[in-house]
């Protein structure tokens, strides 16, 4: 069984962001980078599927500059077998259609039985790439899954809907799943596995060899939202803060009276 997992490296969302000089994306300097949270579940599900079926080979694919190799190494240490790094220093400027086309161009000659992606990235948050990849490849796809079982080529997944409701959806492999938070419990790479990961194949492919389409949309400007104001910001000594909060609550709410 051949499995593909797509991962993106994103900034930690607690970072202090700045808009870059071009004014269309954030400045990458000084940002702590990590694996997109949704993709951690995708990697874990792929590795669990491999463990279940035994005979399987898991490829991890990531598009970006050299720094994404760090994130790929984590996925390899979690149990993926090989990595394909699509080298692209301007991947951040590509739209979801371009990114999906790159992945599909790579995948089309590899006859993967299962593809896992995150349901969205934490930075762009378009929630399109996974479904687009499947559509380009003409493959079934189930988005936003929170439960996954595989039996004899048959997938049974639970899609998460609003308000806690879930839809039970079945598909036959080959199929693509976009993974939602809470799908499983992503493992921590152990030291021996981190060492082993260093020896795993990590192939580099130039993006130009895979990209055959043009962007369908463009970001014209990136900026900080206007602060709507109104709220009181308290900083400094915790003891003072406690008193201030209590005074405001007494003053402005029916609580504590």
């Amino acid at each position, binding site marked *: 069984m051949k499995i593909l997992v797509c991962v993106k490296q994103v900034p930690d*969302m*607690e970072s202090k*962001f700045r808009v870059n000089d071009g004014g*269309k994306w*954030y400045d990458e300097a000084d940002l702590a980078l990590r694996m997109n949270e949704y993709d951690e579940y995708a990697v874990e599900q792929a590795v669990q599927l491999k463990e279940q079926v035994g005979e399987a080979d898991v490829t991890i694919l990531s598009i970006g500059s050299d720094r994404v190799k760090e994130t790929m190494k984590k996925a390899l240490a979690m149990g993926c077998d090989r990595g394909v790094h699509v080298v692209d220093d301007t991947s951040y400027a590509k739209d*979801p*259609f371009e990114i999906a086309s790159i992945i599909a161009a790579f995948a089309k000659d590899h006859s993967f039985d299962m593809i896992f992606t995150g*349901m969205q990235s934490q*930075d762009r*948050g*378009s*929630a*399109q790439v996974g*479904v*687009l990849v499947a*559509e380009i490849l003409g493959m*079934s796809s189930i*988005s*936003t899954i929170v439960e996954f079982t595989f039996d004899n080529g048959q997938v*049974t997944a639970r*899609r*998460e809907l*609003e*308000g*806690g*409701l*879930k*839809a*039970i*959806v079945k*598909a036959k492999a080959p199929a693509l799943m976009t993974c939602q*938070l*809470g799908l499983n419990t992503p493992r921590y790479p152990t030291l021996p596995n981190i060492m082993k990961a260093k020896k795993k194949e990590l192939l580099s492919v130039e993006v130009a060899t895979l990209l055959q389409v043009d*962007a*369908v*949309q*463009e*970001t*014209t*400007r*990136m*900026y*900080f*939202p206007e*602060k*709507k104001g109104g*709220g*009181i*910001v*308290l900083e400094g000594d915790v*003891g003072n*803060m*406690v008193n201030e909060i*209590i005074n405001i*609550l007494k003053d*402005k*709410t*029916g*609580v*504590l009276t």
Partner: protein
Amino acid sequence: MKTLLVGEYRDGKLLGSTYELVAFAEKIGADSAMFLVGRESDLPQYNGILYFADILKYSEFNPTAHKQMLLEVVAKEQPEMIVFSHSSYGWDLAPRLALALKAAQVSEVIDFVDGNLVVPTCNSKLRRDVKSKTAQTVVTLQGGAFGLSGEPSGAPTLVKIETDATAQVEFAGYEAVEKGGVDLSKAEIIVSAGRGIGKPENIEMIANLAQALGGEYGASRPVVDAEWTEHNRQVGTTGQTVSPKLYIACGISGAIQHLVGMKKSEFVVAINTDRDAPIGEIADILAVADLKELVPALTEKIKSL
């Protein structure tokens, strides 16, 4: 401009979010037609053409058939914009349609300014203005971003549509929401724990503050996903919607999916080490502090009152 609005039906009911699509068309001054796979006994109040397919025949989740019918309607109506809710139905179907139309899809739109679609980025810390380069554009709208000024009204002109496209995946029914446990929707005071609590043991700290205030404790999704507390305490899109008098968010960044569940709270206190956390946008008080210090101190003080 002409728009095609893709209404939404779930578990036997027309969703109120359908009217947010109408509000969006109104706001941008566009004409509209609507597409809905629903039930004839429960149609939207809407003045315009409603391309309608029966949900009993095409099911609530059958992306292939829904896409096929949409493509026919798009061919007939030639809309410049096809508008979905950014919901589990919309973000699943929209990219399928966009690809078939070779159209750009712009996700989670919150505004339309000078021809630019405005979308949040990086957990709402930043915004982007986006322009489509294709003649037709598919958009999904963030829940709650657009609202009708008045009550919905009107009666649609039905145009029935059909397809013989077969499903690629099989929808085998719903799994109901887990019932029982606490009912946060009735709580007057809620103190919620976010990922910022750091470890499961710190739930107790949050529960203690809730108890001192005579309220209940809730949680954000990562806390529930990590099984630090049970699902019926989760506040947000995929959890409960609450409207207490006081909501204290401890170590919660303020992602839109969380805000949707608690923005009707009368008064919001946020405790967060990050001064720029988006929760600050809707908080009445943002206390920039380590919750592990502030929460116990606040609890002690309240107990001593």
